[in-house]
């Protein structure tokens, strides 16, 4: 699965889309992790994500931890309603 990535100065924006589940979570990691490892700030645009399960949340949590270790950060942008609902449930876990 391919995701659009745009660059602006030191920020890379990854446009995720479709349904993010266990089957494609590794594809998402393969896109995001190298950007983080290169020291870039990564924005995940989620406006076109119709479904996300715990695997997708895991990718976000892992990405945030990885970014912190690299002294950079990951931000979520334009979170779709279905993803917001799952994120809200995951926040109860905090």
């Amino acid at each position, binding site marked *: 699965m391919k995701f659009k990535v745009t660059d602006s100065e030191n920020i890379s924006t990854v446009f995720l889309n479709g349904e993010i589940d*266990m089957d494609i979570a590794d594809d998402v990691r393969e896109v995001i992790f190298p950007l983080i490892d290169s020291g870039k700030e990564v924005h995940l645009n989620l406006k076109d994500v119709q*479904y996300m*399960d715990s695997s997708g949340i*895991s990718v976000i949590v892992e990405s945030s931890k990885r970014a912190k270790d690299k002294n950079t950060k990951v931000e979520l942008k334009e979170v779709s309603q279905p993803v917001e*609902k799952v994120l809200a449930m*995951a926040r109860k876990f905090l």
Partner: protein
Amino acid sequence: MNTEVADPTNLSEKKDFLVRSSSLKDVRSFSREVFEKFKIDEDLREELVLAIAEAAQNIVKHAYKDFPDTQDRMAVRITCTGKELEIAFFDKGKPVEESKVKHRAIDDVKPGGLGTFFIQEIMDSIKFKEGDKPWINNLVLTKKL
């Protein structure tokens, strides 16, 4: 998709899937079709789809952890009595040890741990049963409507 109408007040649909991560989208499609057919409240549908997909994911991740290339199939049965929805899962994988099924802390998040938390949040009850032959595991989730 098999429709069972042994009791006319009950609606029931059952379908089986290869045990692998690529089947999860088919599990979701099946669930959405059934909820449309059963006229389940639209606000509830996607939460239920998430719970079903997480339970199916747990079968792939845990019951078949050591058998990624299995040709086994798992089955999902959705039954609606009007007042309650029952979702049953059947698989032939490693027997579930209920005491080990619990969610983890968020900073140790793994699909099975957070997924189990989601299932607990969405459903009213979760029961692990020994499956009738040929099944090994039978997970039953219920939700009052």
